[in-house]
């Protein structure tokens, strides 16, 4: 990544710095959660690590005041960009009552926040794809100038809901952008054993939409492709399928031990492409990120993560009987 690619894309220095900060915040929150998990303070973590560039690059290409997102469990970068705070994410990690995603009802990373137009998500993978298509259908019916954006893993792209949802969007040329975050593994199963075809984006053809495979470690390239997809969508040209290829840098989750199914060398190789470093590199080369600034940002984020952790750790759980609430509308 060299030159001033971001300017060519119409991104200001401030905007790319903002992207970087969001990526870094996601990474640091994620790392803290692992520490908390290993210290026995939170029962579960599932990571964004390795996918921050795709998530943040995509989110910045959207209208973060109008568009809807249906993120999947690794999308901490997306939800941070869409307005969820570090504190809110920590409240969710600690399953505290104040967690805006679910009030501590769901596992962490089951995102949802209506005020930020983050659709509520579940654990069964890929169900969010038709939901995003439904939002796009509604937007089309109501003549709204917005798109919906949905993500999932490459393993999840083999579920029937992927096919049914994308075909529906293709038939009705709906303003929905689907981004498959191909991190090469679905738990232990490598992409070759998941996908009949190497490129997920080749599936786009069968639904009558453009498909792109993009370097998921390059936030600017992702930004460009998502931005173009959004323009097409608003132009009435319908949906786009994007495959962002990167690598899952952690085990699948805190319950997984990936040493039984992948080589350490492979992981080390992938780390060399880690966008947190390569994008920092780009910003340094472009003289946007100085050493002072880097220290400042790191400090800021550290404080944010610490404060969020402390707040969440000390926040109360929901009352036991709160389990009875909100099965149906309560008037």
């Amino acid at each position: 990544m060299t030159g001033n690619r971001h300017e060519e894309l119409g991104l200001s220095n401030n905007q790319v710095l903002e992207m970087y900060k969001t990526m870094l915040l996601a990474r640091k929150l994620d790392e803290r959660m692992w520490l908390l998990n290993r210290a026995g303070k939170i029962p579960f973590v599932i990571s964004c690590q390795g996918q921050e560039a795709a998530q943040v690059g995509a989110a910045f290409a959207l209208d973060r005041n109008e568009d809807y997102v249906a993120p999947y469990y690794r999308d901490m970068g997306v939800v941070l960009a869409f307005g969820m705070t570090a504190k809110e994410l920590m409240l969710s990690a600690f399953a505290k009552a104040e967690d805006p995603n679910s009030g501590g009802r769901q596992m962490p990373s089951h995102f949802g926040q209506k005020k930020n137009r983050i659709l509520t998500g579940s654990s069964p993978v890929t169900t969010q794809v038709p939901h995003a298509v439904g939002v796009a259908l509604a937007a089309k019916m109501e003549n709204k100038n917005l798109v919906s954006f949905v993500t999932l893993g490459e393993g999840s792209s083999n579920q029937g809901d992927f096919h049914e949802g994308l075909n529906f969007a293709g038939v009705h040329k709906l303003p929905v952008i689907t981004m498959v975050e191909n991190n090469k593994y679905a738990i232990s199963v490598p992409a070759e054993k998941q996908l009949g075809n190497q490129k997920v984006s080749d599936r786009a053809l069968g639904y009558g939409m453009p498909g792109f495979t993009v370097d998921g470690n390059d936030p600017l390239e992702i930004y460009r492709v998502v931005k173009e997809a959004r323009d097409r969508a608003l132009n009435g040209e319908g949906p786009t399928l994007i495959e962002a290829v990167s690598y899952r840098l952690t085990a699948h989750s805190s319950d997984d031990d990936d040493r039984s199914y992948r080589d350490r060398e492979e992981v080390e190789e992938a780390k060399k492409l880690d966008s947190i470093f390569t994008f920092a590199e780009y910003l340094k080369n472009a003289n946007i990120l100085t050493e002072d600034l880097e220290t400042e940002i790191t400090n800021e984020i550290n404080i944010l993560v610490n404060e969020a952790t402390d707040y969440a750790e000390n926040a109360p759980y929901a009352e036991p009987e709160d389990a009875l609430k909100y099965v149906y509308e309560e008037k």
Partner: protein
Amino acid sequence: MPVMSYIQAVTSALREEMQRDEKVFVLGEDVGRKGGVFKATEGLYNEFGEYRVLDTPLAESAIAGVGIGAAMYGMRPVAEMQFADFIMPAVNQIISEAARIRYRSNNDWDCPIVIRAPYGGGVHGALYHSQSVEAIFANQPGLKIVMPSTPYDVKGLLKAAIRDNDPVLFFEHKRAYRLLKGEVPEEDYVLPIGKADVKREGSDITVITYGLCVHFALQAAEKLAEEGIDAHILDLRTIYPLDKEAIIEAAKKTGKVLLVTEDNKEGSIIGEVAAIIAENCLFDLDAPVQRLAGPDVPSMPYAPTMEKFFMMNPDKIEKAMRELAEF
């Protein structure tokens, strides 16, 4: 009051709700130009246009899932499953998603979708066009399941379902579509979801049932009235969550209870009704709770001999009622 058929009540509820609220729209297979394979949406495509009466691809999980997405956005989708039997590919969307959206988001999001589907047998539909599928869903908090028995109930309950802010499965008996006719008011009205309804007052025995079987039970009751057997008939109308108070009251009223369903016996929703009675009415019962249901085979065969053997009818109910009365 005008008289209309069961299916006309469906169409007119849909039309009036679509006129009342622009957010209401219909989606499903063949619902648009063709007006549905049973003609439940006839005329709506011309009146409201393609996008409010949307012919979807043949993909039930998408029909439900896209509807759910639209509902989260703020629309009021009414999805049609062409036959209840074909709701199966959509089970994940209905159970994992629709039923849990409010709860899992701690009341942040909601999912006001209605899913209509024609169910039931006696129409030479064989295994896959005859089934009662309600038992599959009648154990999922977050869902409501309505199964009306008269045109009046159809209209009032379908309107209520569309206005409800939670997901509602609305099962219509396909044989009732043209068989049953009844008076329906001109004015707008809704009926309460979650409330059973006494369809006949009586003092000797209680019959609790729902859907087309209510009609059969009423026919049987008329016959038995001639013999001096006076049946009390409770129509569950909403089969999940059940109206426990009404069930208990009806059971206590006569102390002799017959539960009827067209579904297979084991695991059907009348098991839950029996359990409620067993928990709450032990000392009020004069006879064991009786259940009359289809046999425990996968579904109704096609051949008329075997279909008749499986399908519920007034004679079978009459016989069971008489036996209970004589207990």
